[in-house]
């Protein structure tokens, strides 16, 4: 009888524990709701640390959902005036020195952006987290003094850049604070660590993120959001090829 009571209480506690975890896909929806907006404009700095030097690049970026974005580099001098346009699956770069618009495609998308730990592919993801991944919650953890859910993501389709992701998501703010992104083989490809968050009206957003390409022996790229606005009106011409040469 005692044994039966022990087994029953064990099953009950496991069930309760499971019930205490939220649904992983529900969490993904909340992350998408928090991180995405209809439109967005941000001024960012990207600090790239290489063996030779540390470079800081300032850019101004516009985005419409996940499918369209436009960036213009303001500094340093060598990069000033360089523009990038993403429209769906297409990515173009404009270089003012050669006055050329060059399409980036194929293997080039896997290359680093401006020597950073980010690839063009990282910018090309069009689907929301919900559309790309299924998620399960495997536990809870305190990360950087914040209570987080531990989420394990598996890709729903083969064409996403990372087939598996482990992330710690802030339980209250729904920001992925820690991510390890893997290839299908299980090889770690990239890590992201949010170092600072900021509140913009009613949402929380990552302010400083350290990206590290696990395949490179780099110190990482620090991505910092200087200012950001959500759901503002952006003229349609911004996302046209004509705006690259303007």
């Amino acid at each position, binding site marked *: 009888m005692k044994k039966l009571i022990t087994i029953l209480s064990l099953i009950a506690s496991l069930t309760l524990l499971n019930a205490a975890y939220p649904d992983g896909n529900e969490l993904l929806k909340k992350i998408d709701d928090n991180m995405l907006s209809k439109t967005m404009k941000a001024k960012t700095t990207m600090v*790239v640390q*290489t*063996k*030779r*030097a540390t*470079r800081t690049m300032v850019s101004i970026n516009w985005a419409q959902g996940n499918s369209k974005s436009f960036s213009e580099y303001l500094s340093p001098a*060598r*990069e000033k005036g*360089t523009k990038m346009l993403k429209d769906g699956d297409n990515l*173009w*770069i404009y*270089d003012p*020195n*050669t*006055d*050329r*618009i*060059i*399409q980036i*495609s*194929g*293997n*080039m998308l896997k*290359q*680093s952006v*401006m*020597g*950073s730990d980010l690839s063009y592919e990282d910018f090309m993801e069009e689907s929301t987290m919900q559309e790309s991944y299924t998620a399960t919650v495997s536990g809870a953890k305190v990360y950087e003094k914040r209570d987080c859910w531990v989420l394990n993501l598996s890709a729903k389709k083969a064409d996403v850049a990372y087939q598996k992701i482990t992330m710690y998501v802030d339980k209250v703010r729904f920001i992925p604070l820690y991510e390890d992104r893997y290839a299908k083989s299980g090889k770690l490809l990239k890590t992201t660590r949010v170092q600072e968050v900021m509140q913009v009206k009613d949402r929380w957003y990552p302010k400083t993120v350290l990206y590290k390409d696990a395949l490179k022996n780099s110190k990482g790229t620090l991505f910092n959001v200087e200012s950001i606005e959500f759901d503002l009106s952006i003229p349609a011409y911004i996302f046209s*090829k004509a705006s690259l040469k303007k």
Partner: protein
Amino acid sequence: MFKFVLKGLFRDRSRSFFPILIVTAGVMVTVFLTSFLDGYLRSMIRQNARFATGHMKIVTNAYAEKLSQKPYDLGFINSESEFEQWKKEFPDIRWTPRIYFGALLDVPDASGNTSEQGDIFGMAIDMQDETAVKDIQIKEALLQGRLPEQPDEVLLSEDLFNKLGLSLDSTITLLGSSVYGAMAFRNFSVCGTISFGVEAIDRGGLVADIEDIRAFLDMPGGATEYFGYLPTADYDDAKAKEIKKQFNAKYNSEDEFAPVLLTLTDQNDLGILLEFYGAYLGMISFIFVIIIAIVLWNAGLMNSIRRYGEFGLRLAMGEQKKHLYWWLIMESLAIGVVGSVIGAAIGIMVLLYFHTHGIDFGVFLKDSSIMMENIIYTSVELKNVLLGILPGILSTLLGAMLAGIGIFRRKTSQLFKELET
């Protein structure tokens, strides 16, 4: 006596024809094979020295660690004064800077948008230096147009040029990363097309002046590699290693951008290749001796059976077994010499043909990254002929010695019985 043996052999052709044929074929194949291998190895060393290794090269420590990846971002920057110093210190060596890089080649359409793209493997040399131009034999490799004369002119591989549908004076844009990781763009004009006959380079090669590429990759006064060539045309490993010792003792340190000198044999596994090459040739000769000896041993046994009566009669007439054995060896020596001379003569004729016309391996090297010429020319060297002749003679002697052992087993008491039958 040798003349007498020869007479006997040629009068009774059944004794000599088959063994001579075997030795001839064996010597011919060996002479050709060793000459071909020699030519192959020389081609490999020559091409590597020209395009990839020099007789020696100076790179940074960090670059040397990832040498096969040619990470130009770990090359030298503003290194003119150091380069001048090295030139003064080692005046016998001819030094020349190079930059190896990869980039995306973009061809614009009429409105400046991307029309065609292709990956290139770029090589920047000092176009003002006549010997640097000669090193990679650009003039010989030029198929269309001319060498770069103006700034921002490049030569493109004929294959890529045709694939992208370009014409001479077409404008192309190179897109890559600067040594600092920044995006790098530069417009160039195609002034000519080249084909080095090296598949690994001809697939997507681009040759430019080093000053233009320094500007493109943001590496003023820099180079990824400083190639060094010995005054002798052929590579001298001992000399190169001596210079390496002196240079590294003076200039190398633990700093990741400190210069380090590498010899040809330190790169592309060429050291192992050269080390084992002698062994390969020895092995080929040894295998040849064994195979031919076995075949001739068998032929000798067959011959002994055929000449059973003759040997019996000669022994019965009082000829010593030793003398008979010695006779057989003399016969085999004659066969070995004649067969080897004929085999070597035919082998020389074949290798002379391929020394002039070469053997085209282009088809097999289509997707290869091996640094070797598409056409391999056999080398003409006395040592390769000797490498065929000596085993040719040795194998016939060995075959006769083994087959002749049967003579000592004959018993005189049985001879008369055999003669009666």
